[in-house]
């Protein structure tokens, strides 16, 4: 009953919130926040109570099933947590905005669809909720108007292409295996021919690849995530693309199964290798494109694509360490990226809509909490020890190195270095440096924005110091797929050669910090000065123009930007233009002259008779 209840609550509250919004804004706000928190609670309660529920007994002759297991629970709790925090954030962000009503209800609807996707116990339910998720997300992206319209259109069309591919795979499976319930499909696939397995992998892989923005299917993401409203950008980057990841896990580990997966393909050209290399390219190229961006949200969007590359790399690599790292990184990226989008949203809100990195600066003084948490999130993206980003990356690197794929490890590590570059650029251009005159009066982020930011930051820190909590869950999930057991301790991995112990590292950092701090206190105190009292080599400080943000990595940009054009995007636009030309050409069949039309009728008849006389079709 629990999965059904959760879905009913989610979709029902979406409707009620919209109606409540017609009544009074406060009522709607309270209802929205309450519903999202109730959903978190319900999902939390469901831990351990794994079950399967048939909720529609006859849909075109198929049974629709919802099931709750650890894998579903893991993704569901992440979804619910991020969406509830985003809703709390929207309380201030969306106040007095005209699309607020729609925003709240659509967010809940998207959440319901995402939960439905992870709870689906048969592939038809999965597909239905997947589609609902896609179109409600498209509506929510578009409701930000302006440039978001083109972004939303690009997103939904690419998503539709993916869904159509998935539909083919789905129905091929149905006609081949006769069932769509996931456990039965998994059994049936074991006996299927390699060609069939490849078809399933390719069609579903295309759909999931588009949703999770794997290169070269990623081109919708930079526009969509940057033009959507900030609370929804957090949800998009944080959890919506993880649905693609969930799909990959379902496809590769549950439906097809690891043994079968590793055998698909020939020699070096296996599915697994190709996916690994696509993941590696997805790590490197978008990360460096992110370095070149000067719009804060666009930078974060490209960064999301890069981080997803890590997850895909880990998943397709297929060892227990890599799998654990990948799923843990899904959680980590959800926390870090939503925090960063919320932080940028807070800055945007307080400065009146400024997102351009060249225009901001010095806001750490005005928004200290936002800055501190954004810093934590940035470090989490890079993977600094003591944040939740360190362990998953460590696991992935170790797996790649130990299994003898140093080139993939190189791609992953270079991705981290690119991440350092863009994280610093983001933090510096928004929060550090000199505070411009026009932003002197910027106030602190409102409480309802600070709370989710703080909670996410806390999560990053806790999971960084005590990685055993998520690792245990991830490890159990991997174990159900037949991956080797990992010795997980509360602080990291158990003792083998190359073990990981976060407690040691944490204590070492704390002690070293204490030592350094004591050393500092030995010296003479510094006198506090304001930003105008700065070194200018003897000349007067040019107040208001003494800030370095524009072209922050200029030398690097000049060197690498010719190589980093988004060629996939150009290709898709070219394709669309050709399609449009063909469509226009096709329309000319209808000339408008009645005589031509009569000619069509007569020639059709003649053609039929001709076909019969010559080819005897009847």
């Amino acid at each position, binding site marked *: 009953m629990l999965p059904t209840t959760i879905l009913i609550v989610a979709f029902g509250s979406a409707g009620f919130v919209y109606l409540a919004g017609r009544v009074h804004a406060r009522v709607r706000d309270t209802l929205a926040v309450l519903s999202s928190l109730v959903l978190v609670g319900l999902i939390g309660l469901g831990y351990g109570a794994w079950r399967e529920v048939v909720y529609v007994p006859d849909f075109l002759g198929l049974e629709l099933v919802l099931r709750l297991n650890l894998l579903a629970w893991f993704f569901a709790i992440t979804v619910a947590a991020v969406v509830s925090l985003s809703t709390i954030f929207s309380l201030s962000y969306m106040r007095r905005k005209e699309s607020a009503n729609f925003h709240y209800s659509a967010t809940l609807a998207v959440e319901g669809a995402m939960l439905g996707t992870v709870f689906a116990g048969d592939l038809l339910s999965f597909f239905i909720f997947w589609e609902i998720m896609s179109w409600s997300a498209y509506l929510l992206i578009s409701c930000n*108007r302006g440039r978001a319209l083109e972004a939303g259109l690009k997103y939904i069309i690419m998503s539709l292409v993916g869904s159509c591919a998935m539909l*083919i795979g789905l129905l091929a499976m149905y006609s081949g295996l006769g069932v769509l319930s996931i456990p039965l499909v998994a059994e049936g696939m074991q006996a299927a021919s390699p060609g069939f397995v490849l078809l399933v992998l390719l069609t579903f892989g295309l759909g999931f690849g588009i949703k999770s923005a794997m290169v070269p299917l990623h081109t919708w993401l930079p526009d969509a995530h940057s033009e959507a409203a900030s609370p929804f950008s957090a949800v998009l980057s944080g959890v919506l693309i993880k649905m693609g990841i969930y799909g990959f896990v379902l496809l590769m580990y549950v439906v097809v199964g690891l043994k079968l997966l590793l055998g698909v393909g020939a020699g070096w050209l296996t599915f697994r290798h190709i996916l690994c290399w696509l993941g590696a390219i997805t790590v490197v190229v978008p990360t460096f494109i992110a370095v070149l961006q000067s719009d804060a949200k666009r930078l974060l969007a490209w960064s999301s694509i890069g981080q997803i590359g890590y997850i895909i790399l880990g998943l397709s690599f297929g060892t227990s360490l890599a799998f654990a790292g990948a799923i843990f990184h899904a959680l980590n990226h959800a926390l870090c990226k939503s925090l960063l989008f919320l932080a940028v949203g807070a800055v945007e809100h307080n400065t009146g809509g400024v997102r351009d990195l060249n225009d901001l600066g010095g806001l750490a003084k005005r928004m200290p909490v936002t800055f501190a948490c954004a810093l934590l999130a940035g470090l989490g993206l890079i993977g600094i020890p003591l944040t939740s980003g360190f362990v998953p990356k460590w696991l992935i690197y170790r797996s790649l190195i130990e299994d003898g794929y140093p080139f993939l490890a190189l791609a992953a590590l270079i991705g981290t270095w690119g991440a350092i570059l863009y994280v610093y650029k983001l933090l510096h251009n928004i929060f550090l440096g000199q505070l411009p005159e026009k932003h002197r009066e910027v106030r602190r982020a409102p409480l309802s924005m600070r709370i989710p930011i703080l909670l996410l930051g806390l999560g990053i820190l806790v999971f960084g110091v005590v990685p055993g909590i998520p690792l245990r869950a991830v490890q159990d999930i991997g174990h159900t797929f037949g991956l080797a057991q990992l010795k997980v301790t509360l602080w990291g991995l158990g003792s083998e050669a190359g073990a990981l112990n976060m407690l040691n590292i944490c204590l070492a950092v704390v002690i070293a910090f204490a030592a350094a701090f004591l050393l500092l206190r030995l010296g003479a105190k510094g006198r506090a000065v304001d930003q105008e009292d700065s070194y200018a080599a003897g000349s007067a400080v040019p107040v208001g123009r003494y800030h370095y943000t524009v072209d922050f990595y200029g030398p690097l940009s000049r060197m690498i930007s010719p190589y980093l054009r988004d060629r996939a995007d150009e290709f898709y636009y070219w394709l669309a233009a050709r399609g449009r030309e063909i469509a226009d050409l096709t329309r000319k069949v*209808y000339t408008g002259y*009645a005589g031509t039309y009569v000619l*069509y009728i007569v020639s*059709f008849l003649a053609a*039929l008779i001709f076909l019969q006389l010559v080819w005897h079709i009847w």
Partner: protein
Amino acid sequence: MVNPILLIAVPLGLGFIIPLLGLIWEKPTRYVPAAAMVFNLAASLLLLPKVLQRPWVVETAGLPPPFSIHLVAGPLGVGLSLLIALVGLLVAIYAIGYVREGPVAKYHSLYLFLLTGATGMVLTADLFNLFVFFEILCISSYALVAYHGDRAGTESSAKYLIQGAIGSSLVLIGIGFVYGLFGTLSMADIARNIDSVSPMKLFLPMAFLITGFGVEAAVLPLNAWLPDAHSSAPSSISAILSGIAIKAGLYAVARVLFTIYGADTIALLVLVIGILTLLVGEMSAFSQNNIKRLLAYSSIGQIGLIVFALGLASALGVQGALFLVVSHALAKSLLFLSVGYMIYRTGSMEISSLYGMGRRMPVSALCFTIGAFSLVGLPPFIGFPAKFTVIMAALERADPLFTALVGVVLVGTVVEGAYFFRIVQGLHFRPPPESATPARADQEEAPVSALVPICLLAALIVAVGVYPSVLTHYLGPAARDLLDKAAYIHHVLGP
């Protein structure tokens, strides 16, 4: 029990009464079509469970078949007349408020005749009778297309008339051939004796019949009248034409192919025609700026899909085709109806003038969105199980050719999605054009007489989309009615 002949007689009779009533008192004439359709709806609902197993054969002149005109009220016939009655009723309610200028009584009279023609077509068992009702349908629609009396309407109607007349003549010639070959006009009788004639001689009448009925059914390349006619007609007529009239034509084609001829062998030809119609329809819709023309081309595309499903010639394929017929009828009428008042308010059919209508007419815009999403085939709307069934039927055969064809069909879906999503965005999220008159909150939304059918259609689309088993229960017997030639002959003519 209601005699199926009443399903035809009542609308026909009331159709004749309306002009007489109009001479005395114009006002109540608006309500007569709705009343007639209420009766039809109730009657069909009562009949449907009874005829699921065994069709009711109605003899008209007291003579047993095959000696006079008969009606066969089978699951397919009664089901389709139910659909005709439902959509006809809702559009009639809409027309109560929508049709105000011009010869209103004549409008409603012709409208009832149109529906009579359609109902008659789906219920009859006689080939010439089929042609008669077909003609009633066509002629009513020729006149109704020109209802506005403006240049565009008249021109479209004239072109429609020319092509329709040619089509009808071809049908007549075909029937003549058939009569010459078999000496009978009862479809069951022809079907029984079909094998006694050589295929070469048989093909000619079939070609004529298919081409003739195909003009009304709007398959490529016979559908050139459709974009003009459906875009220049009043919106309620566009709705009924797209929703019902072309389905009736398609029904005629399907009956001829499957029941009379048992055409499994030319299924591939039907498939190809279907796919071509789908592609040309969707692609032509893509760059349209006129909303009604776009919807008309979209109808062509959907008809292509239905023909594709029919061409699969399997039980599941025909079920999918019927499911699509219902889905498209509901969705396309919803789209035309909701757009009708939007066009009325802005005075223009350009899509760019509809930007921002979501603010001024929220309910209409919402229902338009539901209709559009259903047409693209998104859950949880009825279009999804419909398309799903069709593709399921196509992939049932596990043949790479069919997988490729399905790929082409899905390309059509993506193109469809592309233009519908653009419109939906424009409706809800784009600012209205500067030339738009400022909104007056009280007068903006469509009147109740329009909102009731629109909301009901939307509700149906959602309801059946979430619980398709309501519909699929009846699709099986209906498909069998169409495909199973032997059973049809058995039911009509006896053992």
